[in-house]
């Protein structure tokens, strides 16, 4: 390679770095490292009322009979096995709790776990019905080693959620899965060691058809080691190319591309109460957990929301909806919780709640708020806790008083007073500034003043002090104004801004107060 410049018809000599670069390219690309996470008892553990101190099984239909699919640890001790007819299981263990197999629930739970696994790596593959594959080579440095990642997985899954878990780590996904499925928790860093490590596994663990397994056993191959010794072409001829292909993928001899799990575009989670709930405290508790899940989801997708919706479902009645809106997109758990609390405090439940659901659409990209690096010493505490931001306060007020209770007013260039301001909208271009005096208070609707002796009257006679100032505008928009404005004072001493319509009726109106 280094001598190539002489051969290639290049118009110039290559710089001396090139041979070095070529030698760098020869450095082996790091092999991927797949962590297989198998939840052997998932079918049982998806049932919310399952407890580990109870003998329980999940049953499924097989050829018209109910047979045991998954066995809890306690039932296993008493002799209950998988594929055993349910009657036999009952005979061994009369106190057995039996659940039906719920594949849909299992699938959803696995998706949730895949989402959860996204905290360790971006490459997560779902292996239905009860396993996940995580590519962890890229995450080793971030987490500080493989053992840290494994510890965290075990800790969170076993201690927090009480799942039973097997993990195994190898350079190929299939080998990891095979090891974890057979209950081995090996860590194999190098592809060359795979053959000997897998060799001791029994053939029965292979995810192949029962018929092929039986055929293999009949040829005398009990362990994988026996298969390694057989010639590949012969193996393919006798047992089909599928088996050879699988073994090659397991050993990493041919590539094995996998789909990565992608978290959904919207969030939707619900919780079903074991009994009917009328107490908002309990509701808040569960809703808080849903919110925690939600904010985790938002953080992992690096998005935020400005609206989410809680639905409380009742029996035989339309669901109660709580819409939580924020003025600035957020993903702050505490903030959302406070807003929810505000909503729940005001809510009077008409019927007991059966289940609660949190959903959100329209996720927005998250852009973190910028805080100055050199914060002024006086304000630092407040700034660190983000307390100088008015938004949380306004949202809190809005949650209780209603969406349209919070308003800002900005002026806009218009001679007609009622059109001279905008609500909740700052118009930056201002073409002119009114030089005449205007009152601080404006009546939203001008108030008609009664007249006595052709003079306006408000609890007494009104004395005109200054004016008139004619405002005549808006004829082009159909909302024309033709008025003479006066500054006046009533008999109590309030300074008023009143006008007289310039039409046939010549009525007087109160339009503002000089406060």
């Amino acid at each position, binding site marked *: 390679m280094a001598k190539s410049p002489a051969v290639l018809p290049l118009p110039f000599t290559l710089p001396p770095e090139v041979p070095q670069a070529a030698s760098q390219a020869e450095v082996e690309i790091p092999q991927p490292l797949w962590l297989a996470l198998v939840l052997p008892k998932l079918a049982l553990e998806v049932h919310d009322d399952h407890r580990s101190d109870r003998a329980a099984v999940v049953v499924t239909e097989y050829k018209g009979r109910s047979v045991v699919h998954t066995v809890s640890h306690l039932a296993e001790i008493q002799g209950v096995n998988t594929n055993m007819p349910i009657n036999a299981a009952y005979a061994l263990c009369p106190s057995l709790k039996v659940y039906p197999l719920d594949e849909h629930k299992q699938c959803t739970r696995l998706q949730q776990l895949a989402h959860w696994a996204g905290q360790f790596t971006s490459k997560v593959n779902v292996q239905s019905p009860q396993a996940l594959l995580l590519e962890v080579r890229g995450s080793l440095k971030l987490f500080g080693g493989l053992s840290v990642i494994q510890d965290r997985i075990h800790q969170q899954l076993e201690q927090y959620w009480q799942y039973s878990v097997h993990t195994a780590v190898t350079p190929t996904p299939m080998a990891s899965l095979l090891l974890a499925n057979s209950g081995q928790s090996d860590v194999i860093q190098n592809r060359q060691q795979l053959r000997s490590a897998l060799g001791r596994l029994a053939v029965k663990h292979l995810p192949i058809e029962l018929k092929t397994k039986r055929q293999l056993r009949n040829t005398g191959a009990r362990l994988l080691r026996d298969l390694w010794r057989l010639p590949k072409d012969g193996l393919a001829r006798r047992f089909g190319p599928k088996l050879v292909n699988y073994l090659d993928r397991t050993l990493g001899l041919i590539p094995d591309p996998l789909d990565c799990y992608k978290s959904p575009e919207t969030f939707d989670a619900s919780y079903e109460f074991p009994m009917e709930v009328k107490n908002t405290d309990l509701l808040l508790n569960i809703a808080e957990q849903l919110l925690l899940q939600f904010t985790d989801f938002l953080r992992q997708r690096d998005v935020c929301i400005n609206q989410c919706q809680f639905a409380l479902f009742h029996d035989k009645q339309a669901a109660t909806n709580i819409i939580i809106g924020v003025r600035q997109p957020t993903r702050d758990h505490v903030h959302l919780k406070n807003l929810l609390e505000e909503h729940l405090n005001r809510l009077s439940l008409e019927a007991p709640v059966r289940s609660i659901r949190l959903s959100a659409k329209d996720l927005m990209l998250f852009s973190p708020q910028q805080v100055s690096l050199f914060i002024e010493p006086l304000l630092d505490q407040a700034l660190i806790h983000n307390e100088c931001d008015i938004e949380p306060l306004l949202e809190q007020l809005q949650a209780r008083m209603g969406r349209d209770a919070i308003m800002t007013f900005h002026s806009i260039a218009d001679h007609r007073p009622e059109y001279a301001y905008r609500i909740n909208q*700052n118009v930056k271009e201002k073409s002119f500034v009114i030089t005449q005096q205007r009152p601080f208070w404006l009546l939203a609707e001008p108030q008609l003043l009664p007249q006595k002796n052709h003079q306006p009257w408000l609890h007494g006679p009104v004395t005109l002090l200054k004016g008139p100032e004619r405002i005549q505008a808006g004829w082009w928009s159909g909302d024309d104004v033709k008025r003479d404005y006066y500054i006046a004072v009533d008999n109590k001493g309030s*300074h008023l801004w009143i006008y007289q319509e310039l039409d046939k009726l010549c009525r007087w109106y109160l339009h*503002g107060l000089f406060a």
Partner: protein
Amino acid sequence: MNSKLQSLLENNPQIWRAKDADRYLKDAIPTGYAELDAILPGGGWPANVITEMVTPQWGVGELQLFLPLLRTITQQKRWILLIAPPYVPFAPALERAGIDMDYVVTVQAKHSQKDALWGIEKALQSLACALVFAWVDSFMHGAIRRLQLAAEAGRSLGVLFRQRNDEQSPAALRIRLHPSATGVHVQVLKARGSFQCRSVHINLQLY
């Protein structure tokens, strides 16, 4: 001192001791009107407390009196909340007077008085909000004291505009406004840190 007396003095919120006044007077904010500063103990609006403006009717210069304060606060980019105002704050006039309307937020309390009180308390507690104006007339027993504590906690100034003169009110400063043709007549009804209740006439350019 007798220990019983001591505990009574320290724990009873109904008793206020004159020697505590310094603390409130120290951070007083100048009103922008020299005549008014002269009659207020501390020489300005007392900070972190509730001030009550007894105004029999609106439109006598009650906002004009606070104009220098409003200007300063919005220029410092701190927030002002108007809770349950009787009318629409007219933006062109306020902007012309030098107030940055970006920092003025109006909160309507259409549903109940209780909502308004709750809103005032939350706003006072918030560090982001420097000044709270509220137009609420009737207060439940103990409500003003609660607002007083909130103002201290949030280091903000609360101003209650009331049409009724409530002698029992525990607000730190109580002022009554009398309309006048050339401005407004300010009468101090009660001021923490001073036993003198004086009054002064302030010339205002109302229109």
